[in-house]
């Protein structure tokens, strides 16, 4: 093998270029780290002082029509719960103080929406976002949810609450 000097220089430049290409090419997209289908975010406020958040105790969330254990949240002022992607309506039974038989109180919240599938990427695939969302609280003789304020009619991310719950 016989190289002259200028060939070596050209070789080096090309090798460096290739190396740079190789290194910058190694950005991985095998693991999904982007936002996928957003959850429904509720934030709990004090009915007597509507600017202050108020924690919920032993709040159990059951999604109607799904054979799953309830999700139980304790001592939080906001929760994020999944929406059904298999249909355009989700009904939640929100039970406060679910650990206490005498004091527990069930309220039903129904969400209706339209879905839109959006491509995210190789590893994440498609996510769904929810548009034209309507929130409906079923009234009963003793609602623990005293009032409900709609913040957003579309659920596209989880950065802020979609409804405010006053209790």
């Amino acid at each position, binding site marked *: *093998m*016989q*190289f*002259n000097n200028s*060939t070596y220089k*050209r*070789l080096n430049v*090309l*090798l460096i*270029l*290739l190396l740079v*290409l*190789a290194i*910058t*090419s*190694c*950005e*991985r*997209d095998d693991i*999904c780290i982007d936002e*996928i*289908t957003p*959850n429904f975010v509720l934030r709990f406020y004090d009915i007597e002082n509507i600017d202050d958040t108020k924690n919920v105790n032993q709040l159990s969330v059951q*999604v109607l029509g*799904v054979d*799953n254990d309830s*999700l139980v949240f304790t001592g939080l002022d906001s929760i994020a719960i*999944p*929406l*059904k*992607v*298999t249909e355009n309506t989700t009904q939640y039974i929100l039970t406060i103080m679910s650990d206490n038989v005498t004091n527990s109180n069930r309220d039903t919240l129904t969400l209706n929406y339209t879905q839109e*599938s*959006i*491509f*995210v*990427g*190789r*590893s*994440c*695939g*498609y*996510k*769904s976002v929810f548009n034209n969302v309507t929130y409906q609280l079923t009234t009963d003789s003793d609602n623990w949810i005293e009032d409900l304020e709609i913040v957003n009619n579309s659920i596209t991310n989880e950065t802020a609450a979609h409804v405010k719950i006053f209790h």
Partner: protein
Amino acid sequence: MKLLRMLKSFINIICIVVPFLVFSQEKDSIVYKDSYGLRIGVDLYNPIGTFIDADRKGFELVGDYRISKNYYVAAELGTIEKTREEDFINFTTNGQYIKAGIDYNAYENWLDMENSIYFGFRYGFSTFKQTLNSATLNSSPFLPQQPLDAPIIYDNLNAHWVELIIGMKVETLNNLYLGFSFSGKKMVSTKEPDNFKNLFVPGFNRVFLNNSGFGFNYTISYLIPIYKKVK
């Protein structure tokens, strides 16, 4: 003084004669010639790839034409069908591509050897279609999963890119060359499908997040000599 003058003229004679001696010696030696011509072949990586990975079916023709001592005009022409299974999607890419450019041989051959270690540049173009075979919405695992309507065919897509290549070709039998090369690619522009992405492009292979890619070629080619030229 006479002696010195004689010595001077003697040195002069040496100075004149010696270069002639050296030159004539060179003229005496055998003249080696380089073959110039069209080298055509096929890519062997695709058949091997098909053997290893049943979801990959491809064929590629390669060719180059020597234009000077170190430079070759080169091109590749290929077709590929590739199915890829990811966590939430399964898709097939189907299309053709052409790459054209220049190879620079950086290898100084001894005697009449015709091997090469080369660097290349290519411009690539591909037309293809993507078929989304199946997809599942990426949603909370707490609730049932929802498959999307499929298959969806995204037609009339295309891509332009550039490549840098490093490779070698070795003459194994008379005029028969085995070669391999490695390429780094960078996408210039693509026509992307609506609500999907060109995750694989024929000729470019897997499209990484920052629109770059890699390639590996293993080729067998035959040189059709057209003329010979003194080195």
